[in-house]
């Protein structure tokens, strides 16, 4: 009974804080002057702008996914399958941009490609006059978002390659060289994981609004945000957001139907796999990767940091430390709840004990892929009532939003660890008289500690970098640092904005370093 109650409660929580607001928002948008009317949707279908923006959004998302995957998958092969020197620290550096709010990355690249940026200082007018117009548009958006999302296909490629059973590659190596084994055996087996990485980048890029807004490339999320902010009509804003929700829904459905990414996780072995010796290419490849790392990751951050000075950083810290600490507190609270919910959902999806397991998986992934602005509008519509002020007028609503947005991710991160635990261990516990909750807390959780820790760290960092949710949901005076930076961009001095972005970069680097240092100790325990 406790098992059923807990699993239903976890699924119910997800529905209450994620699906109900979206459902209510959609329901209200089909009424006009108190009667059922699809006028907002009809207008959207008639407006040529809607179709044009949808086309632009899909183009941006497709090109970003292709770019990220084209860069991320080979990097994943190098980091996950070869004996490249220093591959773990190198991979960590490549992951870093994913942990920053995308607009910080955009501001950093602006310091490189803008008319008076680093490129102008190095080469002069001719180069910057050519590059700057390209940067402010589709190419710039693809560049900034593509590089920011490279870690997604990269990590999924690493995980997928590591999951290939040792014996398959060993057998192939008896008859074929590595180039053939990789092309004919390893990559085809890892294909589902790599494609899932591309799909994730597609939905993340399609839902992103800060970078297209900064680089003046109109997309559907920008339209839905501006409709929400500029129009007095919430139903019209909802209708403007609906096509994005539909696309996300369709993509997740396709992924669930055809790619079956879960097969990758369930095959996870103990981590041992064959490694490709690069031999005489080891150091030349290392040099190339370092060069690329400098060009794609370190140069914009260096440009951003060099644009400020110690006095501005001190001022920024003095003025914004409360926002920084507040963000840490919200993120830690949300990450703890997300890890717990992700753990229960992962068990539900992996063990398939209730008929809702597919629905739970689909719902959590749908909410993860949904643009934050859409989710926030739904939450405001649902909770903005005098009787619910305890939640609406407090940071609880923001924590709810984080949970709704990221439960799909924590579920996915914990799931492989649960998949690796044999059913027999839980069975043994049951035979000894342990109840379900006791088995979950005493057997499954300790054995899944690696996935749980990873899930906590990932959730914490993603909540920390989020902009759309705190911007729209944080109560007065209780904003987070990325949201504060975004509002201060209005006429704030460029060096102070750079200093605040540098603070975000430093905070993220510090948190990541602490997590990386503690991770082995925690998982050993």
């Amino acid at each position, binding site marked *: 009974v406790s098992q059923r109650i807990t699993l239903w409660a976890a699924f119910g929580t997800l529905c209450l804080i994620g699906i109900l607001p979206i459902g209510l928002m959609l329901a209200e948008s089909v009424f006009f002057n108190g009667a059922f009317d699809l006028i907002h949707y009809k207008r959207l279908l008639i*407006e040529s702008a809607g179709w044009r923006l949808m086309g632009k959004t899909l183009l941006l998302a497709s090109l970003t996914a292709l770019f990220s995957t084209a860069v991320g998958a080979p990097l994943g092969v190098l980091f996950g399958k070869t004996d490249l020197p220093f591959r773990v620290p190198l991979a960590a550096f490549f992951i870093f941009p994913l942990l920053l709010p995308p607009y910080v990355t955009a501001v950093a690249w602006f310091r490189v490609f803008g*008319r008076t940026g680093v490129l102008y200082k190095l080469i002069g007018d001719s180069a910057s006059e050519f590059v700057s117009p390209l940067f402010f548009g589709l190419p710039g958006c693809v560049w900034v978002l593509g590089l920011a999302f490279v870690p997604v296909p990269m990590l999924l490629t690493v995980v997928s390659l590591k999951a290939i059973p040792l014996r398959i590659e060993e057998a192939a190596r008896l008859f074929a060289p590595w180039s053939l084994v990789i092309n004919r055996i390893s990559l085809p087996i890892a294909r589902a994981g790599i494609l899932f990485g591309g799909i994730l980048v597609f939905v993340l890029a399609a839902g992103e609004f800060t970078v297209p807004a900064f680089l003046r490339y109109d997309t559907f999320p920008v339209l839905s945000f501006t409709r929400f902010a500029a129009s007095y009509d919430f139903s019209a804003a909802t209708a403007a957001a609906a096509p994005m929700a539909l696309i996300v829904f369709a993509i997740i459905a396709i992924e669930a139907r055809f790619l079956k990414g879960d097969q990758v996780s369930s095959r996870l072995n103990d981590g041992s796999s064959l490694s490709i010796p690069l031999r005489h290419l080891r150091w030349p490849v290392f040099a190339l990767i370092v060069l690329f790392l400098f060009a794609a990751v370190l140069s914009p951050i260096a440009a951003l940091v060099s644009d400020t000075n110690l006095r501005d950083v001190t001022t920024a810290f003095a003025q914004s430390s409360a926002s920084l600490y507040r963000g840490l507190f919200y993120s830690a609270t949300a990450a703890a709840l997300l890890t717990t919910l992700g753990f229960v959902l992962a068990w539900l999806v992996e063990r398939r004990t209730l008929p809702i397991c597919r629905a739970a998986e689909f719902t959590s992934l749908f909410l993860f892929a949904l643009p934050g602005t859409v989710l926030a509008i739904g939450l405001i519509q649902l909770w903005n009532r005098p009787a619910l002020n305890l939640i609406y007028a407090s940071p609880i609503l923001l924590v709810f939003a984080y949970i709704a947005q990221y439960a799909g991710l924590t579920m996915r991160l914990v799931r492989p660890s649960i998949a690796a635990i044999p059913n027999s261990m839980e069975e043994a516990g049951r035979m000894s008289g342990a109840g379900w909750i006791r088995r979950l807390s005493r057997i499954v959780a300790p054995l899944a500690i690696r996935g749980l820790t990873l899930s906590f760290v990932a959730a914490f960092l993603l909540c920390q970098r989020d902009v759309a949710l705190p911007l729209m949901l944080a109560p007065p005076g209780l904003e987070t640092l990325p949201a504060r930076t975004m509002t201060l961009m209005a006429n704030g001095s460029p060096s102070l904005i750079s200093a605040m972005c540098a603070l975000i970069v430093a905070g993220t680097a510090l948190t990541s370093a602490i997590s990386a240092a503690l991770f082995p100790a925690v998982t050993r325990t």
Partner: protein
Amino acid sequence: VYVSEDQVFSEPILKDFERETGITVHAIFDTEEAKSTGVMNRLIAEKGNPQADVYWANEPVRAEALKKQGITAAYVSASASGIPNEFRDAEGHWTGFSARGRVMLVNKSARLKTKPDSVLAYTDPRFRGRGVIANPLFGTTTAYIAALFTAWGDKKGNEFLDGLKRNDVKISTSNGETADMVASGEFDFGLADTDDAVSRIRQGKPVEMILPDQGNSGLGMLILPNAAMIIRSGPHPDNGRRLIDYLLSKETERKLAFADCAQIPLHPGVATPAELKSIDAIKAMNVDYHKVANKMQELQPVLNAWAGQ
């Protein structure tokens, strides 16, 4: 407090208020992209469940819209005495203070034969592709377009909007971005607020500020004061009124005049920096904010359609 005035300028004033009165202020600020509309829509959404006591708007036109929706309450502050009547709501729902003007910001290194000294430069073929303007769906640009429609009539107003497209005028996300684009040389000129212009000049950017349409036949420069208003049924009405008194004081106007936003005081006799012209020395556009507010509401679908084309 919900604030549409730039955070970088408004936050120090709110901090001073906290220090001087001991009343803690919790503020929400607009982003540059959603200027004046983000928190305003939040106020509309919260009409039945108000969370704010005061709205510090960066222009009075949207204040009129809030008044019409019954979101504001009347309050005539003693500090408002001396502020000219044209900058105050007759029923006391909002009171203007510390004004900005809509000015042309021009890059000094732009190779232009004549300087764009009128808003009509945007539709002048000589300046084709060289101008940038903030998204008319947001901020003071909406108010400006509505003021032009009110002054010119719908026909000329619509021709102007079409002319912007024909003349390849680029749309930025905000006035701040317009100022940055002009300062960095991406564009030769752009319409921005005086605070955007003065802050770039003080940052040493190669730009100059031109007051538009100052000739005899010119429309004049649009003056947009900040506006302070009490939210009806807000949770702390007394503290809200004390904040309004503070915002409307001569001292606040003096601080905002000497800050980088260089806003023009509306009280007579407030000290100002040398580069700031007094309100009497400027040819101001003759506007009725109430009419402009009505026109702005009426124009919303037109602007939505125009922006989406």
